């Protein structure tokens, strides 16, 4: 991991002389570096999460007033494909905007950016970036991302920015989420079974 880090540093300090070979090696080093770091992080464990999210905010095109209120409720099932690093999944939900209710759906990808550790006891939360594309039933085509914090692997809060390139607007929202698949206490655990 340290070697990969040094190689990474080398790549970026000599960026003027980047060749294809060097670029590929750099990408591999980045992958190895992130993967090695991620393996020790308890955040993004294997398995599924299913977030129920409530969000609201505004839709604007920066040119005409007034900005429109938007609120919604959505479900996001996501599967960890690289433990400690990456989830993929989708979103389906309903939004209220411009006095109309519309459906939205689309795929997403969540990258863990960093996590907060409680010394050697484990982690507390992570900061993640969710990239997604949503299609709406009222001709919306939303491309954007959510920067959010996931606390205790069951609660998320953050904000999102989407560009609706179908209707030429920007969406700014804040939101909260709760993982419906959160592990609940099931009595006595027996690691010996």
């Amino acid at each position: 991991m340290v070697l990969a880090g040094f190689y990474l540093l080398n790549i970026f300090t000599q960026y003027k002389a980047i060749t294809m070979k060097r670029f590929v090696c750099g990408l591999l080093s980045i992958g190895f570096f992130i993967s090695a770091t991620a393996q020790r992080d308890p955040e993004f464990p294997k398995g599924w999460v299913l977030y129920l999210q409530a969000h609201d905010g505004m839709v604007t095109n920066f040119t005409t007033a007034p900005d429109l209120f938007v609120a919604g409720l959505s479900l996001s099932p996501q599967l960890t494909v690289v433990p400690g690093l990456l989830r993929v999944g989708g979103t389906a939900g309903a939004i209220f905007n411009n006095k109309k209710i519309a459906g939205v759906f689309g795929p997403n990808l969540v990258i863990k950016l960093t996590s907060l550790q409680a010394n050697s006891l484990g982690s507390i939360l992570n900061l993640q970036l969710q990239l997604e594309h949503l299609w709406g039933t009222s001709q919306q085509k939303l491309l954007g991302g959510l920067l959010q914090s996931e606390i205790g692997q069951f609660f998320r809060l953050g904000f999102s920015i989407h560009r609706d390139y179908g209707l030429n607007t920007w969406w700014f929202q804040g939101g909260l989420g709760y993982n419906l698949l959160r592990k609940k206490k099931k009595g006595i655990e027996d690691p010996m079974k």
Partner: protein
Amino acid sequence: MAKRALVVSGGGCKGAFAVGVLKNLAANFPEISFDIFVGTSTGSLIAPFAALERIDMLEKLYTSITTDQVVIRGNVVARLLGSNSLFDAAPLANLIKQYYNDDVCQQVFVSGKEVFFATTCLQTGASVNFSTNTPSLVSDYEVMKLNTPDELRRAVMASACQPVFMQPIEVKKGSLPLRQYVDGGVKEYAGIQLAIDAGAEEIYAIVLSPETRDTDEHPFNDALAILERTIDIFTAGVGSNDVRIPAVYNKTLQYIAAVKKKMLAAGIPQNKIEDYFNIPFNNPLAGKKPLKIYVIRPDAPLGGGPGGLTFDPAEMKGMLAKGQKRLDDFMANLPPEQRPIA
């Protein structure tokens, strides 16, 4: 014939130091064999293989495993709300099942050695020692006999599971009333007194913390760091008492033996002397003789992280080497009259 006991304290990965001591004992003092084995926590992982004289297995175990093969660290909030412990000890359970398979467990049962695993019962708060044999002469402890390989593995696991960090274990699975057990080190870090009560007259106690207190000069301004430090101080305190109390007990026996000798020299008949000391009361020293207790411990802290839960093979190899060297120094510094009886 006088019984000889091996006592190994708790200490997580620092058990590698004990393995180093045992490796040296087996190589250079093969005449020293043990009848009684008392393990607490990591000592319980060591005791059965020590009873079978399989130091090779212990060396393999204590120089190769990593933290990930012992516990899985998780999200603290998620584990506090959704689990029985901060860490998941399933990897350690798998390791115990792998190393202590049915064959190995049966060999321990038929070896004729008395192996004790120190635990603490969460329901009763009592120190409970599980034993592979029908226990002898142990009156001050709750001792339960292990009957099956699964019970033996569970006893090893329970003894090793540090409460809060790892899940409590039901040793007699399904028995009622429910009894869950955790690390015996909560109450007794090194079971020297148990070895004495089990009839040992010569005890080798491998204690995995140094005699001098571990000083940490950095400021404590973080609740979790304070918690970890408190656990270390608590463990050292329990360990210190476990060594000190049997030492006081032994000094008392030695003192009484010296008084008896002086009385005999003064012309008092032996039967009279015995009569003076035979007060019709619950005499805790009745029938006890002065013991030989050898406490072998590191000179300085061994490392291994809080609770000894950082398993780093390279660091553990170093601990093993320290254990080997420590035994050499220990034996070399023993006065001739205190040398072990072959």
